């Protein structure tokens, strides 16, 4: 979605008709941020600048709102987002080892993205399948019972 094409009135629907123009524009902010992130994978500064003009909102305020939510990212994301579970069960079954191996192999730290944008490495609290510990998620998929072999395969699929 292009920022220029955001139709403030339409996206707000019935509620938009009641609200003053200014509130209408403010109200659509998170909507717009989600759409931008979907397109770009993150929130690029130049796009936010355009959004700031379009919605008459200070750029600093847009950054403030976006940074409140962990869901929004300000730097490009990897094509694969790997989240290593550090919940109790996984921890006990060697999640730390999984994590440090990934860090070493890709030469990045938790929270970082590889230079070629192949992968972003993150951790997660618990994803609710402790029976498969240790687990990690790759984008939407769950990889369970990670041993040495599985870890190698995982690394290979990432590239």
């Amino acid at each position, binding site marked *: 979605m292009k920022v220029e094409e955001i139709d403030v009135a339409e996206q707000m629907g019935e509620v938009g008709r009641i609200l003053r123009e200014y509130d209408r524009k403010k109200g659509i902010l998170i909507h717009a941020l989600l759409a931008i992130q979907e397109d770009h994978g993150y929130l690029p500064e130049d796009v936010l600048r355009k959004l700031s003009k379009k919605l008459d909102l200070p750029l*600093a305020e847009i*950054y*403030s709102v976006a940074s409140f939510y962990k869901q929004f990212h*300000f730097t490009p994301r990897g094509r694969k987002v790997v989240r290593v579970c550090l919940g109790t069960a996984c921890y006990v079954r060697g999640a730390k080892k999984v994590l440090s191996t990934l860090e070493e192999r890709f030469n990045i730290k938790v929270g970082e993205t590889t230079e070629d944008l192949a992968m972003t490495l993150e951790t997660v609290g618990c994803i609710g399948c402790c029976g498969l510990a240790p687990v990690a998620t790759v984008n939407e998929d769950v990889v369970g019972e990670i041993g040495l072999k599985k870890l190698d395969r995982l690394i290979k699929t990432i590239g």
Partner: protein
Amino acid sequence: MADIVGLTIDDKEVQAPEGMNLIDAAELAGVHIPNLCYLKGMKGIGACRLCLIEIEGLKAPMIACNTKVKEGMVINTKTEKVLEIRKFVIDLILSMHPLDCMTCTKAGVCRLQQYAYDFGIKESSFTRKRFGYPADEANPFIKRDPEYCIICGKCVHICKAQGTSVLDFMGRGVEAKVITANDRPLQESGCTFCGSCVDVCPVNALLEADRWRKGREWEYEKVNSVCLLCGNGCEITVSTKEGSIQKINAGAAEGSAERYICAYGRFGFDCIEAETRLTHPMKRINGELKETTWEDALRTVADKLKRSGKDVGFISVAGIVNEDALVLKKFVKDVVKTENVNTTMSLYADSDSLRKSHTADIDDADLVFLVGLSPSQRERILPALDAAIRKKVNRGLKLVVINSSEAKIAEASTISLKGDEVSNLKAIVRVLIDKGFKADKEIESSVKDAEVSEDIEKAASLFAEAKEPLIFSSPSLFWASANISLLKGKIISVALESNARGVALMGLTTEGKTYKEMVGTAESKEQSAQSGVKVLYAVGEVPLNKRPDGIDFLIVQNSHLTELAQQADVILPSATFLESAGTIIDYMGRLKYLPQIIEPQGASKSHRDIFIHLSKIIGSPLKRPAEAEVKKATRVKTKLSFSPFVKKEGFDISPSELIDSINASVINGSRLLWLKEIERAMAV
């Protein structure tokens, strides 16, 4: 007037106006309720939880910053319960704050230090937690150090309220931090470096960049004065140490919408000691400017003036104090005996509009009509007016912008009327007459053909409903706008220089040759033209870079060596406004007093002392003007009457060019030059 309610605070009976919050009400009773995030004049946000107090009859403590007074309320601000909470809050904040008060610049004025002292907390009982966020020290004005920040949000709120909006919070919880957009350095964020954030920061997170080990607050002598760099004439508080200026802060009352100064007013004082500062009189000998004595310089000038009489012309800026203006006028008329004196005011205003303006206070207004004006903090055109209006809009003021060109401030308006100003003014008057406002026949007949639109109707309704409407008008539209003020409210003609109104009242107005005639009506700055006088005497930093053709002798009396001064035959060094005492009448019609804050640099003297000295040599000595003389000159009847709906022509000078031109030495001789270069680079 708001109704008065009676309440009890810590066993003291207090009378407070309805709608007032408890922090302000307690202050009336002489009780200080601790707070870190409350900004007087703005809505309390209850972020710091320090102002919790107990109200009898209520179970839980309430925040005083956002609780309004009620008749019969009984409040206790120092119960065991709230003291315990406050102590806990300070304890928590200290766990994330450096404990280096011994070298901290803010020691003595730090609120956190004060409250920690009050509770006897040496260090936090919690584990220390620091994030190690780096400081932003990439500019010469403001240092931002997140390590000291207590996230009170005052800087964010003041920045937003005045419409600059470059600061905001990032993240949440303990990791929260005050940032610019994408955490860029200030100069890349659209910051105007007004320093309002520095004024409100209760700790050491925001500070003037040059303060490290340059003295702390208790070492300073503080004097209130007025900034004379532009038409706003803002109140300032000047801190000096050992006879030199250390810093300048906003000086208007806390809570007033006018509590604001721009980067020029706050940081321009460096220029006092700039390389270009004139400390000795100079005289052209064999084609070269050489330092000389006052005696010699004045004798040369006196001689020239005496012989040339009517061929002498005086041009002056309108940023000189009343006393200088009075003496200049007498010097011209009674000593040199010519009519040729005029000021830069004539470039943007007719003096009558300034003389006939009302006296007003923007803090009292509930509606502002802004006619033909484009105040801008970013361009520093009447920046304080821009900030004050935006702050007032946040507090409920209605704003109607009437401007034929694009005005940035229209973004804060309730209604923005574009198109020809005069037609819009007429239409508003017409609607008001239809609504039953009584007006002269002349007015009625001149507006009967005016076209009315929906927005005009709305603007007129706002005016009809307002209790204290205030019209700010550009001088050229003053007379047309004044017709509205005949129905209700007040009107101010807004000039571009600090004492334009005072200069008009002191009678320094066009009588002989005009300013333009004396400097030649050159089309561009580079091109010179024939002047109407033989000897030109320029007072202050006039917006003129080239010696006009036809001038036999040029005298420049200014504080700095300008381009024009380099072409002069005699240069007389004058004191800056921080170095000589005087009064001005600001654009709102208020008499403001400027004390002498520091000694003039070198041998420089005040304008009036130079004129008085010259008058003695010429043989008709002048006296220093008495206070009563100034006061008498300010007493003018401001009764307005109908004037035709027209825009006065001939005042088309670019405001930003004029303001930068009369402040060229301030800008070039201070760290503002850095800012100007950055702004130029960003604009490309």
